[in-house]
């Protein structure tokens, strides 16, 4: 039987953006329905161990999210995908894969990002060689507190490669993903803390230390932890006869081609528009470049879309770091409040 829910605001996606926005809207007294397609809330934070630059544990944040969603006026449904949104006069009608219809005054898309699929960078042999893993798989190792290389043993040498799936016309993404440089620095330190004897080499095209304390962390990783940085993009990874990983790159500052054998290669995969982001932006005609949702005006109305009442926030728009996405969620709350009170 079809179920209809009436609410003020439908928030799609219960990652950091959706949770922070829903929580604040609810505290302002609006009725909020929050939908998450996965069984648990937290979005991509669930896949991480600690967050840069201050090594805050992801679990702590998840715990905080759990406390936030018990606020009055907020109803959360997990395991429910919003498959369609459309405007009907002054209302927005969202439908879910569970056959529900949500009638709301406004919709906030907080559908987030998906990690780049490293199989597309075929020259690195991801999915073929054991010793080549993604940054998210490395987060899993960190969660378990155990780092192992291609032969299942403790690695002596680890390479980290930046910009995998970002800044790369070959995979169709010319943009920078913003988070991976500093995440690589964080990894270097985390590796050295667990394996002080391991040699760590981070291969980069440019190091983009854009946030507060990022540069300091980079410096610390060199000075106190002895992490090595080589300016040059790895062109190819292959497996050696003893199952290690052989890399080719140029040390561009030395102007020589180099070869290196490592036990583990960590690919810093970038940020792409999630499937829901692409699907819902396509339906509503707000899809921008690379499948991200496009705001009405980057400088003047960055949470608005071309449709009054349809708002967007967080990494469904473009790559953001955690503090940025949360700030954007709060900004969206203000815009939605103005809209509902006819102030815009």
């Amino acid at each position, binding site marked *: 039987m079809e179920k209809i829910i009436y609410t003020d605001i439908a928030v799609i996606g219960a990652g950091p953006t959706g949770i922070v926005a829903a929580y604040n809207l609810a505290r302002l007294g609006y009725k909020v329905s929050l939908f998450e397609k996965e069984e648990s809330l937290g979005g991509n934070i669930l896949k991480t161990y600690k967050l840069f630059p201050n090594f805050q544990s992801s679990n702590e944040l998840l715990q905080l999210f759990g406390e936030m969603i018990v606020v009055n006026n907020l109803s959360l449904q997990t395991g429910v995908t919003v498959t369609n949104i459309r405007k009907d006069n002054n209302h927005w009608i969202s439908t879910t894969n569970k056959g529900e219809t949500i009638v709301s005054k406004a919709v906030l898309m907080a559908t987030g990002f998906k990690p780049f699929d490293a199989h597309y960078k075929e020259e690195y042999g991801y999915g073929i060689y054991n010793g080549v893993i993604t940054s998210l798989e490395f987060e899993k190792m960190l969660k378990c507190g155990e780092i192992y290389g291609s032969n299942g043993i403790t690695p002596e040498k680890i390479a980290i490669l930046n910009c995998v799936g970002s800044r790369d016309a070959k995979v169709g993404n010319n943009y920078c993903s913003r988070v991976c440089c500093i995440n690589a620095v964080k990894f270097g330190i985390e590796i050295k803390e667990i394996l002080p004897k391991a040699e760590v080499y981070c291969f980069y095209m440019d190091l983009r230390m854009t946030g507060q304390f990022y540069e300091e962390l980079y410096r610390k990783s060199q000075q106190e932890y002895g992490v090595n940085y080589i300016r040059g993009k790895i062109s190819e990874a292959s497996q050696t006869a003893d199952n290690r990983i052989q890399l080719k790159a140029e040390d561009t500052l*030395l102007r*020589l081609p180099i070869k*290196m054998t490592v036990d583990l290669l960590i690919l810093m995969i970038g940020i792409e528009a999630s499937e829901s982001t692409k699907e819902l932006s396509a339906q509503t005609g707000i899809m921008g470049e690379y499948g991200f949702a496009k705001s009405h005006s980057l400088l003047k109305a960055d949470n608005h879309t071309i449709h009054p009442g349809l708002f967007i926030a967080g990494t469904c728009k473009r790559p953001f770091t955690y503090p940025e996405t949360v700030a954007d969620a709060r900004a969206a709350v203000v815009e939605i409040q103005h809209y509902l009170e006819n102030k815009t």
Partner: protein
Amino acid sequence: MKNFGFKISASRQLDMDTIQSDLYEKLIQLEPTAKRCLMCGACAATCTAAEINGFNFRYCHLLMKRGILDNLAKELSKCMLCGKCYMVCPREINTRSIILKMKALMTETTPKHYSL
């Protein structure tokens, strides 16, 4: 061995698995600020000697880091130790100390190249 009129070209590729790193390990113990060099090149840009004799502190530092020591002692002798590089380095690297220590380390290993 036969001579076919040509030789097998040597590879220019640097094998990072077999580079000689012991001198650099000693260097960063003697002068730990070397570890945080960004390779930005401000030192080489401002260097008085660079304009005259092509000395490049950044590059010499990198050569030792990568174990390419063949001409290093000779190169290092081009520095005038004026200290201008230290004035511009964004990472407060003790450049002259590094040069002196590199020289000393090179003297230990290759005295015949070494001259001041």
